[in-house]
């Protein structure tokens, strides 16, 4: 059942067994998974069914570090940022879960195997099941192209799959509308979590609407699922009993904000013979109703040997050089010269047929892992939003290991392209010790309520329960201790399913 909070009388007091704050992919997944469990669920959502500018403005904030689009990187409406997401899906790699002695603060409390069954279910929710993330034989058979075997051992291939993309707000609207024990409260902004006097349990939520109503919702259990930036903000805003904010006894809330630094235009690969670069590497293939594209990532052994962070590279053909056309830029002139000079050493095809292109340029984009850094963080600003709440202040920082890893991977990839005979790479890495101003994020907000068995090192435990608080849980990528180089939504939906299992069993 859907209820608009603006239709409720000011001062209304509601009750529920389980309050889920935020109806994005995480919140909706938990509500659906617990539907039919016999418990009363209230999904509390700030926005309406579609994005509205006044609600969206609540997502604004202040940047102290690398400039970041706080509003444009999330959507505050029923369905959350899935209104705008691109649908890129890939699980984290097994090494991403490990404590790596060269990555400070790394290590999940459990490994890939624990999440594997939830990944399978998450793929169904994101409409990409059964997924074929590592099944090269499948993509080879499906495309009819022979896929190259890795040559150097430094680079591996994975297959990104694309959700339609699932828009949670529309795809799962009907099922929530019909669910017996689920109420979805729209236009309901949670302003604080209220806790018992000893601060060991949450008693309910303080809610406001933009038209001035104040409501309260008493809940036996609360799940915070407001996204990786808003989860820490709400904990920090909830300072009625705990002056530093809920779950923040050890000053961990908001710290270790991580993105996937995205870069492009750092490398161009000239390819003489496209037959050596199968289609699935350069475009999305539609097979059996699913879309997929190959991506390159460093092998686990290379990461270990060189003590680097993870990365994902994908590319597409940008330019095709006609045989006799003049080059229009100095770089194109270089690329044409290189193809003329070394083309025969790249392709075994022999002389090109009359009029065939001289070659092609394969452009790469990269999404990198960022190491957790306690100084890369979310705090509260002194400015306030339309509800009178302190806005968030993001100080996103990137470090030396992040940058060094990226540069090493680009070189390794360039060597792999040479070893496979695919092409020759022109690199523009700039200053390899600092990030270019063009670095941006991928709208992935991770790490700000990180998971760790030790309350001094994390905000939630392995069950996603906030340390020291019996009935408060967190869902979403804010619990990731490290973020790997895979887009986060598949993993956060898998974690949401795991949390739902835990809550179901806890009854």
């Amino acid at each position, binding site marked *: 059942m859907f209820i608009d909070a603006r239709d409720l009388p000011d001062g209304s007091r509601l009750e529920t067994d389980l309050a889920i704050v935020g109806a994005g992919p995480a919140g909706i997944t938990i509500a659906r998974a617990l539907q039919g469990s016999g418990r009363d669920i209230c999904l509390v959502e700030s926005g309406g069914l579609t994005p509205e500018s006044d609600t969206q403005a609540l997502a604004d904030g202040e940047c102290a570090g690398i400039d970041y689009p706080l509003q444009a990187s999330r959507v505050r409406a029923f369905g959350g940022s899935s209104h705008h997401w691109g649908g890129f899906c890939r699980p984290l790699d097994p090494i991403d879960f490990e404590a790596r002695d060269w990555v400070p603060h790394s290590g999940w409390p459990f490994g890939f195997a624990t999440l594997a069954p939830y990944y399978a279910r998450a793929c169904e929710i994101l409409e990409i099941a059964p997924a074929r993330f590592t099944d090269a034989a499948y993509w080879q058979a499906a495309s009819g192209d022979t896929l190259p075997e890795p040559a150097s051992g*430094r680079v591996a291939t994975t297959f990104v799959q694309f959700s339609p993309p699932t828009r949670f707000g529309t795809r799962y609207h009907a099922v929530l509308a019909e669910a017996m024990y689920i109420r979805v409260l729209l236009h309901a902004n949670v302003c604080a979590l209220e806790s018992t006097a000893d601060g060991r349990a949450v008693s309910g939520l303080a809610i406001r609407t933009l038209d001035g109503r104040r409501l309260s919702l008493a809940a036996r259990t609360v799940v915070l699922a407001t996204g990786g930036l808003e989860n820490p903000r709400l904990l920090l805003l909830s300072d009625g009993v705990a002056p530093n904010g809920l779950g923040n006894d050890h000053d961990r809330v908001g710290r270790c904000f991580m993105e996937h630094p995205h870069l492009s235009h750092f490398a161009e690969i000239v390819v003489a013979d496209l037959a050596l670069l199968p289609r699935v590497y350069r475009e999305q293939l539609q097979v059996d109703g699913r879309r997929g594209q190959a991506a390159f990532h460093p*092998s686990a052994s290379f990461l270990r040997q060189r003590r680097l962070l993870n990365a994902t590279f994908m590319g597409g053909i940008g330019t095709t050089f006609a045989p006799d056309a003049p080059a229009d830029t100095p770089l194109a002139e270089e690329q044409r010269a*290189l193809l003329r*000079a070394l083309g025969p050493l790249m392709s075994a095809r022999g002389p090109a047929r009359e009029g065939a292109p001289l070659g092609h340029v394969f452009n790469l984009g990269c999404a990198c892992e960022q190491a957790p850094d306690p100084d890369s963080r979310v705090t509260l600003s002194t400015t306030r939003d339309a509800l009178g709440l302190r806005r968030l202040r993001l100080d996103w920082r990137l470090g030396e290991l992040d940058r060094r890893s990226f540069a090493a991977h680009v070189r390794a990839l360039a060597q792999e392209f040479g070893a496979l005979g695919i092409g020759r790479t022109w690199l523009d890495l700039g200053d390899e010790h600092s990030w270019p101003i063009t670095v941006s994020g991928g709208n992935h907000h991770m790490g700000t309520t990180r998971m760790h068995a030790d309350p001094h090192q994390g905000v939630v435990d392995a069950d996603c329960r906030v340390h020291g608080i019996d009935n408060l849980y967190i869902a979403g990528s804010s619990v990731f201790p490290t973020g790997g180089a895979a887009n986060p939504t598949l993993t956060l939906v898998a974690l949401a399913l795991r949390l739902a299992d835990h809550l179901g069993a806890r009854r």
Partner: protein
Amino acid sequence: MTRDAFQPARRRLIGLALAALAGVPARADVGATAQAAGLLDAIDAEAAARFGFRYLAQHTGEARLPELVAYLAAAIREERATGTKGISRLTALRERIRHDYRDADCVDLDGWLLSRTEARLCALAALSRAA
């Protein structure tokens, strides 16, 4: 993946040793020039020279045509000895270059990441043109 993949270019070192044993003449001679022409006939030497001059600017000690010829000839011989039998000179060079990349035996030429062997082939093209 084997550990071998990260080991230095053993084959290249053997190749250089072979070239040294072959008694490389100190200056270009007629035989080397002819051999160079043979090595370059598969590629566009004029285009390659552009990259070769850059390599020579970085590796001034290598600006000796006979040594480059000997190096490349040894590389081809070695590929033929250790790889597929009876392969053409071009195929052997192609294989050698792939191995360079696999072994991370590469050079950086104004942004281009090239295999050492192909960079030397370009250098040969540059020297031949200069000659």
